[in-house]
């Protein structure tokens, strides 16, 4: 059984995955409400909360799986990228469990984790495939040839897709986190009401800053009353532009590398318009799109475990390691 811990941003999470790949527990304690009043994740606030939650979340995961640490034979933890102070809480906890119980430990890259959510059943996807990984921190096109080997084809030149949703939601007064709020409001609106620009950049990269500026100008030109009546149309049109950018580049990349299968992972993968437009794509179940430890446990199955001499001094890393 694998025990996995994830604390890279604002979710404190622990999961247990058994030898046959069955998810026995998946506990995610979200801090979204805590950060809502700041309009975004505050690293020091997040790190403090992780420390408060880490032991209760571990206890809850063991309880949910109706098991004990005696049944665990491998510990996995997110090493990065993410908020250093937040990551270090999870890493310290993972090391303490592994070391005290003489277990090997696997450090997992958070982005590989998002991709590895696709290896869980469902959808139990097998490489090779092209993966669009879109979240609050990242927007990546990845060629996945083997379970743990990712090749970067494209990334965002400015904001991540999830960040574009958050910033758009703030401009529209829809609150935080923005992705779910815009998605909900967009269902009542007309996506063709506004023709927001979709940036076309070189290669398979993305750019969302121009779109955000376009929304800003539209909102500025409206009185509060007009904004209230146009909010759903603005949300729908804005979301449509983001989704179109994501889909166009993904399809272009798929054609270029001759990918037979497209997959979507990451928090933005929960967006209903994206899920419906990318027909035939492998999708991560909704509850595993946003950060969780089940995906970290899933990735750990395809990585080399470290012995204590290799992990006791383990440090976190903040930025993306994929070239």
């Amino acid at each position, binding site marked *: 059984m694998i025990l996995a811990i994830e604390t890279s941003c604002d979710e404190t999470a622990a999961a247990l995955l058994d030898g046959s790949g069955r998810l026995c527990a998946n506990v995610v304690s979200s801090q979204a409400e805590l950060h809502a009043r700041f309009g975004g994740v505050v690293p*020091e606030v997040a790190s403090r909360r992780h420390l408060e939650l880490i032991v209760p979340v*571990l206890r809850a995961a063991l309880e949910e799986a109706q098991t004990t640490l005696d049944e665990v034979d491998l510990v996995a933890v997110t090493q990065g990228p993410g908020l250093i*102070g937040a990551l*270090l809480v999870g*890493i*310290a906890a993972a090391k*303490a469990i592994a070391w005290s119980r*003489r277990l090997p430990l696997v450090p997992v890259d958070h982005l590989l984790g998002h991709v590895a959510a696709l290896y869980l059943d469902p959808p139990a996807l097998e490489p090779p495939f092209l993966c669009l990984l879109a979240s609050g921190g990242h927007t990546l096109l990845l060629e996945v040839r083997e379970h743990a080997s990712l090749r970067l084809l494209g990334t965002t030149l400015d904001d991540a897709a999830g960040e574009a949703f958050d910033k758009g939601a703030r401009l529209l007064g829809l609150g935080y986190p923005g992705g779910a709020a815009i998605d909900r409001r967009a269902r009542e609106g007309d996506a063709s009401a506004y023709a927001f620009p979709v940036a076309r950049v070189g290669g398979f990269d993305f750019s969302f800053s121009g779109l955000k500026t376009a929304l800003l100008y539209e909102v500025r030109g409206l009185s509060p009353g007009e904004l209230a009546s146009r909010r759903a149309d603005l949300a729908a049109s804005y979301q449509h532009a983001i989704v179109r950018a994501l889909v166009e580049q993904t399809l272009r990349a798929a054609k270029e590398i001759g990918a037979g299968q497209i997959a979507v992972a990451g928090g933005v993968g929960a967006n209903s318009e994206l899920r419906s437009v990318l027909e035939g794509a492998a999708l991560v179940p909704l509850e595993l799109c946003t950060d969780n430890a089940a995906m970290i446990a899933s990735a750990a199955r395809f990585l080399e475990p470290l012995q204590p001499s290799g992990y*006791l001094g383990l440090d976190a890393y903040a930025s993306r390691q994929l070239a």
Partner: protein
Amino acid sequence: MLTLALDTATPRASCALVRDGELLGERESRAVAVLVAAEELLAENGLVPGDLDRIVCGTGPGSFTGIRIGLATARTLALALDLSLAGVSTLAALAAGAPGALPVIDGSRKEVFTLAEGDPVVMRPEELVLEPGMLCVGDGAVRYRALLERAGAEVPSDASELHVVRARFHVALAAGFGPAERVEPLYLRVPDAEKALGS
């Protein structure tokens, strides 16, 4: 009774192994490597983590990230080995290593953590209430040596052992062992974002 103590609140983290009041060993490391030190201490004594009876952890004040590494490690060790845990203030441990001295820990942002009438506080070094000849110890005392000495205080040489937090003192001071979650961090400062929101 075998006790493992650790304090990672300052850049020179400390880990000590104590059996029935006898110090079996003590190690200094970076905060993220505190378990490397713990492993060495146990191995040198032919022991394994499963032999431990109790955990003691420094609760700060000091580096926020350092405090959390220590507490996350100690709380999870207590959970994984089913042991009780006690917290000891890093200021109290520093003071225990230099009886009669005022502990002064560098709080960054031009502030220090110290004791005022026995209570942990955060203040600017200029605000310290110092008496002539008063001994000040800790990395904050070293950092603000010139200022403290001008005010009449004495600060041991930079290399003095008195400036370093040593985990053996945590064991001596530890009391009230209990469940892991009961030991709380001592930050002494709210996050900047909270402050900005509150003002």
